């Protein structure tokens, strides 16, 4: 496939193999990453890319295979080894302490001596050098909590470089960024590349692969199925390689037939204990047979909006009408009552809210519906009925493996999401709230989940989708609302919206 290169590869993996119990996550993967390049690794969730990178970073040990860094075989027993060999990882979820300054975060784990002052002074000098060399400027004395998400990510990258990394692994780095911030991140990655740093980018977003990488490796079912030079390939081909069949990235749907208003909020506000306004005068209407998308950068009130609509939190002010039932500060709803009214809720964070990791899949498949028939008869849970229900959901929504008895945590993210979605849609709700429908879900499942949501809409369900993925909002929604700082700052027809205008609105630049 490739001629022998004289220079040693930055990283070479040979025959890496890893199983978790019966799951064969990585199967004999060999790959070479050249120094001073940006290499993308794409694949569906559960394709093994995160596992592979965790092995490279010393978080897991491979069952078999060899890792070479700069031509030398090395033993990666822990992240400490990886750092010693100049490999650094920027995680999807930031590992920063909010109340510390940038500088204090920088020296965490590398304090340098008994007294902090010496280490801090040295770190300050080093930080200035890094900022100069790589164009990564961050105020060292700023508190992390006061920084924007994009800046926090820059701190993470600096932290890794500070520990002497020459090889940088980024795991889904753009998940929390606006399109503008993502562009800035890519500028940084290009600068790093010019300075000789090797960058490995794990992502499922093909647009990003096309924008910034030199080479791309495609993983499927634990194997590298293709390696391409980025300029020789395109999104369609990569998507097909990832899924193993043709996929349609665009969604075909008939225009919506809007019916009666099923959910309406008027002047809805939510103020937390510290007096922070999380929701500010939100007024939305949701009609039968339409999908309304809520776009926004994480943390601008979307989560709280979902919680209030689902009855988990009571509004501080204003009112909410669901299928004719009114909820306000004096008459707070609760999730069970909302469910009885015909409202279903696929929560944003399925692991923390939508399922119980330690429960069997069949137990998770009735969460929220456990009281009353068909699952409870004569005060007892009907085990066989619950199992049969779960098996049916798994069949209909193609949840794999089809094992109702398996612990919920043993399913991949996409399959967990399909199970939760199946549970909520199977009840034929009148109103369906969906938070981050495809977070951590692979392309094949995204296609499926989107189709199911459109199907529910066509059946007359009022669907509200909250997502940080603009592509998703643009392809799914019949109407798009943009949230910023707890307010609805604009409404856009998807036909007339593009990522740029939405991005500006999401950043609070202007209200359209």
């Amino acid at each position, binding site marked *: 496939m490739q001629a022998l290169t004289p220079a040693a590869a930055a990283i070479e993996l*040979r*025959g890496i193999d890893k*199983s*978790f*119990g019966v799951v064969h996550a990585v199967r004999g993967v060999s790959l070479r990453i050249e120094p001073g390049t940006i290499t993308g690794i794409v694949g569906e969730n559960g394709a093994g890319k995160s596992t592979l990178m965790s092995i490279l970073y010393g978080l897991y*040990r*491979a*069952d*078999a*295979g*060899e890792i070479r860094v700069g031509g030398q*075989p090395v033993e990666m027993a822990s992240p400490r080894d990886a750092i010693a060999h100049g490999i650094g990882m920027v995680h999807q979820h930031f590992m920063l302490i909010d109340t510390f300054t940038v500088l204090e975060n920088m020296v965490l784990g590398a304090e340098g001596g008994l007294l902090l002052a010496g280490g801090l002074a040295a770190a300050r000098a080093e930080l200035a050098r890094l900022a100069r060399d790589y164009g990564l400027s961050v105020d060292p004395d700023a508190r992390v909590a006061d920084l924007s998400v994009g800046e926090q990510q820059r701190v993470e990258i600096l932290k890794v470089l500070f520990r002497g990394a020459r090889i940088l692994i980024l795991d889904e780095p753009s998940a929390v960024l606006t399109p503008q911030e993502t562009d800035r991140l890519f500028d940084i990655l290009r600068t790093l590349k010019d300075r000789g740093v090797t960058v490995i980018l794990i992502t499922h977003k093909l647009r990003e692969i096309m924008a910034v990488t030199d080479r791309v490796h495609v993983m499927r079912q634990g194997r590298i199925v293709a390696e391409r030079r980025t300029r020789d390939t395109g999104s369609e081909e990569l998507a097909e390689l990832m899924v193993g069949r043709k996929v349609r990235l665009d969604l075909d749907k008939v225009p919506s037939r809007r019916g009666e208003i099923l959910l309406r909020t008027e002047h809805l506000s939510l103020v937390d204990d510290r007096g922070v306004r999380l929701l500010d005068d939100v007024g939305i209407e949701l009609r039968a047979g339409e999908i309304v998308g809520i776009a926004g950068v994480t943390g601008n009130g979307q989560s709280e909006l979902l919680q209030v609509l*689902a*009855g*988990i939190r009571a509004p501080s002010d204003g009112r909410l009408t669901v299928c004719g039932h009114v909820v306000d500060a004096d008459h707070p709803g*609760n*999730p*069970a*009552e909302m*469910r009885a009214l015909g409202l279903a*809720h696929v*929560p944003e964070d399925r692991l*923390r*809210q*939508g*399922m*119980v*990791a*330690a*429960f069997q899949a069949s*137990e998770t498949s*009735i*969460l*929220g519906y*456990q*009281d*009353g028939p068909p*699952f*409870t008869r004569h*005060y*007892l*849970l009907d*085990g066989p009925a619950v199992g049969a229900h779960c098996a049916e959901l798994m069949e209909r929504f193609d949840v794999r493996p089809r094992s109702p008895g398996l612990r919920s945590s043993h399913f991949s993210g996409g399959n967990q999401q399909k199970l939760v979605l199946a549970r909520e849609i199977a009840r034929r709700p009148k109103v369906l709230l969906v938070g981050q429908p495809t977070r951590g879900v692979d392309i094949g499942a995204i296609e499926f989940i989107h189709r199911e949501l459109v199907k529910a809409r066509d059946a007359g369900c009022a669907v509200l989708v909250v997502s940080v993925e603009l592509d998703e909002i643009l392809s799914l929604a019949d109407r798009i609302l943009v949230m910023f700082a707890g307010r609805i700052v604009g409404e856009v027809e998807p036909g007339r919206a593009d990522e740029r205008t939405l991005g500006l609105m999401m950043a609070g630049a202007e209200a359209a």
Partner: protein
Amino acid sequence: MKVRRRSLPGPLPIWAEIVLLPLVNIALAFIIVGVIVAIIGVDPFHALRLLVVGAVGSSESIGYTLYYATNFTFTGLAVAVAFHAGLFNIGGEGQAYIGGLGCGLAVLALDRWLPAWLLVPIAIAAAALFGAAWAAVPAWLQAWRGSHIVITTIMFNFVASALMVYLMVNVLIAPGSMTPQSRTFAPSGRIPAMHDVLQAVGIAVAPSALNLSIVLALACCVAVWVFLWHTPWGYALRTMGHNPEAAVYAGTNLRRMTMVAMCLSGALAGFVGVNELMGVHHRIVLDFPAGYGFAGIAVALMGRSHPLGIVLAALLFGALQQGGAELAFEIPSITREMVVVIQGLIILFSGALAHLPRPWLQALLVRRA
């Protein structure tokens, strides 16, 4: 190409998890105990033989072992139910004490008028009610005021103890008695001893403290199992214990569920009073919970909070209690305190260090094909 292969730490098979791991833990504890016993100049094998014979060597010792196990089952179940709800009930001691007060008061009030078949169920219900009420206060403080349940249940043990001393010395003491204990219960307020019951059907066994409360303990095991795994309330309770956010999402009222879990827990602990007062002492006495409430924590831990495991752990603790008493009696250099050390080591190894042998067992059992 160089290929390295390492054993993979997968999960243990279920039988190893439930049976082998606890057995290995106990064996480790016994090895340490043996060393300590040898240091004080006693042949450890001789001591072990005495311990085993003392626990299961005669129908009398088996009776006592089962009688102790009855108490450990009640308190173990009490801790387990709270634990499944994510609550740590350290107050079994006090709940058992007040539960005993409940059944004692019911018997003292009614034993002259009601027959046994009516009075015994009423007294058992009173034990449950009083135990639950004593757990309800810390539960309420946790659910509405955010006071940590570990702290409040511990404090309630002291309150229960002080309250009982006051009541026994000043209110419930039998007229003319020098010791702080109530009058003797009439026969209708007693739970029949096992040796009497067996004699009635023609089986002769030596008298012991074992009484029909053990049937109540086994019934509680089945009831707890059904409740936790086969009712929607048990389902909601376990959801809260594993993931409170998911429980809120599912529509469970966490405050109410905290109350339910703690009241059930307190009721189960309260049954210790039934075994002790109605089954053995036949009067209200001081200090009958004697540490069963605390030992229940170890029993639940060792039994992995499952009724079946709790029965097995309770049997072990019962055997240790009984065998240990015999041991202290037979060998003067092994004191009562020494027996407590032995129990402590077993609790240490099966509770705090429960997962110590896990990596070895995994390396041994979980070989990759």
